[in-house]
């Protein structure tokens, strides 16, 4: 069986593909696996194990032709030739992990019989299959509510299941030897912690200021002997130098622009810890089992792309505006992460002690601090390690985690063990609830969502039943279509009214987009499925909401006026306890 995996993304995304390759081998042991990557990242891709054929997409050559005046026909020839040469026969199966049209159309252009992930439809519309691929697409738009890591989404959207084994690399021995040769002459004593610092990131706003990284390093040196290796690209050299000039020269080695991907991975493997922004090298470190201390700033969100594996520490700014939705002129998140906290948690990681939740420290209030873990099904999760009351944000994330799996996987989803695990998390990683979790309005919106989806399903069924009679009853057909339009409008309203549910609403609209270009009656027939899934989502969410309330010991809110009065009095009395996450400091 010929299987093609398409990943036209960058370093980190490539490394995050390794679980797909591993699970693919396990599911199709005799298949031949080809991986298509951007030619610019070919060197990184060579580190990926379990690939039979590595195929670089000729982006440099195509860009060179396209950048010439009137060069596009030449680019078309090159692309057609590349396709003809490399796909003389259509692959049996394509797994497209690239969340854009280039990957989707490439999958289609190979002529493959089956495409999983994002693809295009013969109607020129985008198409996602299986349902997890639709989910992966919608959470790229409604990020706030997504509880799943990209690694797990890669697996699920390609029809594979997680194994909780994390990332892996095929590191060439020559690279490891070369690193040993480099480290030998440094004569670093065994008690010295080897700590990597990575001040760069793909976007400037995701870079913690190098001065603050240097302060954290100095604080860490005060706790234990350390030697720092500073990594990055040639273009990031000024960031590295800004750190190096603040640290003792003997304790610092600058390696910016001096490492190939293989060498970088080999260096990372030798470290005791990497302190990094959300970057590709962070995933490389995770893949070679080096503990990371990751700083997720600006638009980076730990649930989406946090380091994979167990025992990594992640710091996020505890701001209402994080992760940011638009370019930000103030970057308060850079100040929210403090050198003291980074050095404290780095030291904790270097102590190699089990990471159990600890009590709140006043100076940590501006941060969310997580440890990476896996759930009983092998999905990645990020657990709070500072004991705080459960927040509305976290509550709905945990709820979504239980609901989506059951909807997308159906009966294949083993709910009970996850339920037990979640109960332990809620009891072990959180203090008793003090914050309003939005249960009343959430419950109302969920009920409304289920009701609207049911209505949509019913109207769609009635329209489908008009097949063959639409000429006879044009007014009735028009009324029904108008009814669907109102339902869709109302669904959008619910998504806006309760943003934690926006992904559920989007999930319906993704289903609708997949069917674009279809005539109304067949379309109505097709839409019954998406409406039914959203109805089921809402129903399940209400069920799980009740269960979680039970675990948390919460009685129904809003039913008892006397209780509400009491709640308000409590709020007034404990104002300090009820402050929003970033008190007095709304982001904008």
């Amino acid at each position, binding site marked *: 069986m010929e299987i093609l995996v398409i990943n036209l993304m960058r370093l980190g995304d490539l490394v995050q593909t390794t679980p797909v390759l591993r699970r693919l081998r396990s599911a199709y042991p005799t298949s031949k696996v080809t991986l298509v990557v951007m030619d610019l990242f070919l060197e990184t891709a060579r580190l990926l194990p379990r690939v039979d054929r590595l195929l670089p997409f000729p982006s440099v050559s195509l860009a060179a032709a396209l950048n010439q005046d009137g060069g596009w026909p*030449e680019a078309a020839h090159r692309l057609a030739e590349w396709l003809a040469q490399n796909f003389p026969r259509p692959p049996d199966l394509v797994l497209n992990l690239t969340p854009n049209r*280039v990957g989707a159309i*490439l999958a289609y252009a190979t002529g493959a019989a089956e495409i999983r992930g994002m693809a295009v439809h*013969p109607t020129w519309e985008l198409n996602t299959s299986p349902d997890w691929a639709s989910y992966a697409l919608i959470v790229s738009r409604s990020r706030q509510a997504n509880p799943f890591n990209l690694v797990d989404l890669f697996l699920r959207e390609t029809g594979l299941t997680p194994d909780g084994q994390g990332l892996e690399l095929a590191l060439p021995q020559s690279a490891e030897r070369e690193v040993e040769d480099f480290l030998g002459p440094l004569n670093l004593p065994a008690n010295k912690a080897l700590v990597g610092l990575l001040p760069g990131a793909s976007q400037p706003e995701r870079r913690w200021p190098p001065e603050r990284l240097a302060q954290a390093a100095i604080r860490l040196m005060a706790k234990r002997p350390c030697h720092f290796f500073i990594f990055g690209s040639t273009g990031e050299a000024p960031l590295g130098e800004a750190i190096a000039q603040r640290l003792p020269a003997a304790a610092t080695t600058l390696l910016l622009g001096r490492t190939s991907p293989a060498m970088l991975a080999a260096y990372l493997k030798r470290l005791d810890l990497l302190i990094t922004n959300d970057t590709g090298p962070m995933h490389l470190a995770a893949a070679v089992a080096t503990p990371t201390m990751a700083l997720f700033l600006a638009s980076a969100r730990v649930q989406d792309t946090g380091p994979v594996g167990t025992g990594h520490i992640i710091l996020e700014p505890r701001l209402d505006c994080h992760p940011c939705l638009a370019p930000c002129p103030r970057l308060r998140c850079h100040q929210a992460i403090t050198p003291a906290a980074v050095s404290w948690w780095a030291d904790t990681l270097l102590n190699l002690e089990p990471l159990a939740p600890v009590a709140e420290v006043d100076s940590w209030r501006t941060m969310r601090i997580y440890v990476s873990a896996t759930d009983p099904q092998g999905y990645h999760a990020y657990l709070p390690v500072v004991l705080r009351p459960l927040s509305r944000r976290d509550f709905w994330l945990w709820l979504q985690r239980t609901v989506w799996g059951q909807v997308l996987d159906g009966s294949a989803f083993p709910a009970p063990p996850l339920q037990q695990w979640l109960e332990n998390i809620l009891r072990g990683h959180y203090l008793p609830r003090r914050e309003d979790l939005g249960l009343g309005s959430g419950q109302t919106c969920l009920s409304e969502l289920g009701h609207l989806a049911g209505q949509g399903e019913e109207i769609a069924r009635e329209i489908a039943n008009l097949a063959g009679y639409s000429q006879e009853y044009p007014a009735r057909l028009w009324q029904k279509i108008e009814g669907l339009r109102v339902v869709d409008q109302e669904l959008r309203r619910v998504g806006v009214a309760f943003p934690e549910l926006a992904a559920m609403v989007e999930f319906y609209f993704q289903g609708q987009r997949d069917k674009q270009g279809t005539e109304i009656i067949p379309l109505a027939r097709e839409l019954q499925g998406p409406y039914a899934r959203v109805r089921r989502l809402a129903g399940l969410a209400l069920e799980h909401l009740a269960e979680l309330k039970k675990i948390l010991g919460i009685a129904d809110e809003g039913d008892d006026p006397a209780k509400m009065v009491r709640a308000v009095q409590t709020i007034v009395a404990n104002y300090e306890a009820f402050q929003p996450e970033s008190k007095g400091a709304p982001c904008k």
Partner: protein
Amino acid sequence: MNYWEKNYEILKQQVPDLAETLAKTHIPADHQVLPSKTGLPSLKVGRQQLHSAYDPLAEGLAWVQAQDIEEAEPLVIFGLGLGYHVLPLLEAGREVWVVEPSAAVARLALEHQDLTPLWAQGGLRLGRDFQGLPPGARLLAHPPSRRLHPGLYQRLAAHLRGESGAGAYLRILVVGPLYGGSHPIARSCARAFSALGHQAELLDYAPFYQGYQILQDVTADKSTENRLTQELLTFLGEILVARVRDFRPDLVFLLAQAPVEPRLLRRLSSEGPLLAYWFVEAFQVFPYWRDLAPEVDVFFTIQREPFFRELSELGPKNFAFLPLAADPEVYRPLNLTPEEIRQFGAAVSFVGAGYRNRREFFPGLLDFDFRIWGSDWNLNSPLGPFIQNHGARVSEEEAVKIFNASRINLNLHSSPYHLAINPEGDYVNPRTFDLAAAGAFQLVDPRAQLSEFFQPEEEVALFHDLTEARDKIAFYLSHGEECIRMARQGRKRCLRDHTYNVRLEQALDLIADLCPGKLPQRSPPEKPLEQLRRGFPADHPVQAMLQPVPPEVEDLSQLVDTLRERDEPLTESEAIFWLLHEFQQGLERGRF
């Protein structure tokens, strides 16, 4: 019978068109026939001596002897001069064809030599007319003629080699002014360069005109206003630099009043393109040419002496005469509705600005059905009732309607220094060409250059003073058929010799002559669809996919849009182009 009559007699029988052209040819002032030391006439064009000032006959013979010519092979000689180098070959009975770039030089040759054998043993061709030259003929160059016209020589050589002879394909950026008379010329130039097969683009500053006007009202403080205006001009200059960097032209063709100054021209030049400036103004009235001419590679003028002398004294040697022309796409005969004729027509019309000489002259014509169109007129004057639309500017589309609707179009060249006709006026204004191209009858004041372009009283009617103007208006108003005949003749001449296409082809030859080897010799690019088809085997599915694609599809996004509109399931071939288009868009967004 003198030489001219003898030559003309035979030529008229054998090549009547050529005979007619030469008969009408006007000899410019810089073409001088001077006696050599031996007494034989020699010829000087500008500063180029075409023959020896000592013994042109011996020089011609020596040139022939120096040529390595095989017996009986037909010869094509580039450059006739006064024919001293051609006559020995004719006497030897050779088949000789001569291509002479200049009709004036050919006319002088026919006035000073007996060239009758040439009509029997070959022939004469003028300018770019290479018709009937024997293929594979041996090309010989008369060196001074080649020095004067290297561009045309290369074109002839290419023609004889069997190549298309079309000039190289160039990227040309035309830069016009914010407003004013040279703005429509800039637009016509860009269109003409495109029509000549080049990739031409107009940097149109007209949208910034409103901003420029607003600046005039911002402050009463003159120095602040000047500073703001200067900053706007600097900003416009930056736009030009940015466009040059993006478009990467081979040639920047600037029109008079374009917002450029010497420092900007030096910056542009350092970006690589050749700079040509067409100064379509009177050099006596607008002295800013002194700053600009030294900074460009070629400076085109619509006047010759004494402008050339002043340019030479200033330093540059890179100037050339390039008269104005007409854009027949704009100025054309129209079928007007009765309503339009009523709105735009009159017995006598004038279109133009209210210059001093016009304000002084026109009160002598007010007893005619007379309409004046254009700006800068004093409405509170005897002319007031005759001025249309309260002196509003006239668009090109309005102008062409006025020209067509009027029985007589008066064309009085502007002058700020005279009361009526400028007796020293040399250049011919754009209106002369526009009226001719529109097929409109015009009554024009005399200009020194006019007879080079139109035959007076055959193709245009002239007036030398008010009395003559009044007499001729009266005459032509009662002889409409004569007006129609003359207007037709004028249009025919204009379409043949004075369109922007013709003029700018001459301009490119002049640039090649003045800056040899500076313009790239690039072939015109193949049409994208042809290039695509050529790259795929005949049986490739892409060929069938491209079959119904209209030929005007030029870029990838147009192609993808066309494919998408087909309403058929996406094929794998179509997916290739869609994929490439998405990749291209990603590149533009900086995503890869």
